[in-house]
């Protein structure tokens, strides 16, 4: 897969100067959209992602309603201009799968029993992509759900780890993702160390996997603190 001579690690540092377990710069803004019930703008390095939450609202079609609880929906969508080669608008197989996995990452914290027969819609738009968009989307969605006042047991935090030049590293950027050997996005409830999403593709040994999982779990603690701080700041302003 890799081009000859392209080194992703030089002198113990990655191409963008980060160390192996260093996150990219994160910026979080809460309540950025007027019409949505809750929203969040999330930057992870060069990823720019916005999440909006609508609901709980009456579910249509009615036969899809759940008499006991709300139905959570999640739509991950890439803007056509978010990637180098224009992405054809609309859902493709990748975004269908990411939407499912992301929804399942958030389900464990949402108290859906409070709102039977309703739906809660989460819309995530990827405006600019630089690898790790699904994790940025989950982080944004989690904050947007809290901003919408949806009853939640906790926040969900997410990050990817991967393997480049044989090393396990945190939070791959696009170059590392393209030329790396493995990618493993993880989402978790940081305060309970409960993993709510994990995917992996590429090639990893068991010990690399265990090292990567620990690295991702540590980073999720940091992301959780940033999400929490952003929410507190937003609501202490008011």
């Amino acid at each position, binding site marked *: 897969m890799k081009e000859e001579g392209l080194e992703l690690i030089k002198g113990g540092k990655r191409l963008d100067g980060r160390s192996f377990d260093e996150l990219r710069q994160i910026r979080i803004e809460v309540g950025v959209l007027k019409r949505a019930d809750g929203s969040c703008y999330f930057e992870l390095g060069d990823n720019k992602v916005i999440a909006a939450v609508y609901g709980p609202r009456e579910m249509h079609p009615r036969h899809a309603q759940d008499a006991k609880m709300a139905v959570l929906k999640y739509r991950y969508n890439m803007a056509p201009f978010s990637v180098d080669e224009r992405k054809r608008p609309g859902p493709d197989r990748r975004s269908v799968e990411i939407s*499912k996995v992301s929804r399942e990452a958030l*389900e464990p914290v949402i108290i859906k029993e409070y709102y039977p027969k309703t739906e809660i819609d989460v819309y995530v738009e990827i405006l600019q992509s630089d690898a790790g968009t699904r994790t940025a989307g989950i982080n944004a969605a989690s904050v947007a759900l809290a901003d919408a006042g949806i009853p939640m047991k906790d926040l969900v935090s997410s990050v990817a780890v991967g393997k480049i030049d044989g090393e396990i590293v945190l939070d791959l950027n696009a170059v590392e993702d393209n030329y790396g050997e493995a990618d493993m996005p993880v989402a978790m409830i940081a305060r309970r*160390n*409960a*993993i709510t999403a*994990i995917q992996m593709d590429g*090639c990893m040994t068991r010990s690399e996997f265990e090292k990567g*999982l620990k690295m991702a779990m540590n980073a999720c603690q940091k992301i959780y603190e940033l999400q929490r701080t952003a929410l507190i700041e937003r609501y202490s302003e008011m």
Partner: protein
Amino acid sequence: MGLEIMDDVRRDYIYDLVRGGRREDGRAFLDYREIKVERDIIKRAEGSARVKMGNTEVLVGVKLEPGEPFPDSPDKGVIITNAELVPLASPEFEPGPPNEDSVQLARVVDRGIRGSEAIDLDKLCIEEGEKVWIVFIDIHVLDNDGNLVDAAALGAIASLLNVRIPNERYGLDGGEETMVLSNKPVAVTMVDIGGEILVDPNYNEEKAALSGLTVISNPDGTISALQKYGNGSLSEDAVTEMVEIGIEKAGELRRTFLEP
């Protein structure tokens, strides 16, 4: 509505059994159901396999067609994996375009094959930048009694073991040629029921469980894909234990069904 109540009753039943160390069909927690793999059963396909895992039945067919390479890999063949959950296989499946379950099934199987580099894409180039072999792996589910991923992944590799490259059909040189398979990834799916890990969940167990994990691993013990399912969460210990079990069980399946 009535069905939902039955789901609750069944879920309680499954959990009660597991608490007592048992499973609905009498298996031990780490046992597979009886597995049967039949290869080369579809004459028109370049490779095929029918996998029965208990009452779950999946048919996989592999077809090769010449086509255009991707611009960023002009000298490499292409793999396209697709899964159809046809309505014949379950009262819950409906006709229509792929839904998130069929997309996920196909993509997880695809990632296992891709990550392990089982198919040597460099060898599937016909004319650089112009023409390469497209390998279509089509998963046709016939009966869904749970754990479609493991059955489909096993069927995919079993089908790929002996793929005849259809040079003659497309007027290409090369004569009788077999596609080389350079790795044998095997998927093992587990669910967590009340803190216990169960391998190869049947339909009822799959529905009752809050979380599950598929581990796709190779003969050298490396992992080429992971996928967590469901609305629950898993502890770090549960995930690492599942990975360990997954690698071990994959070895057993490989020795039994994929060795010549």
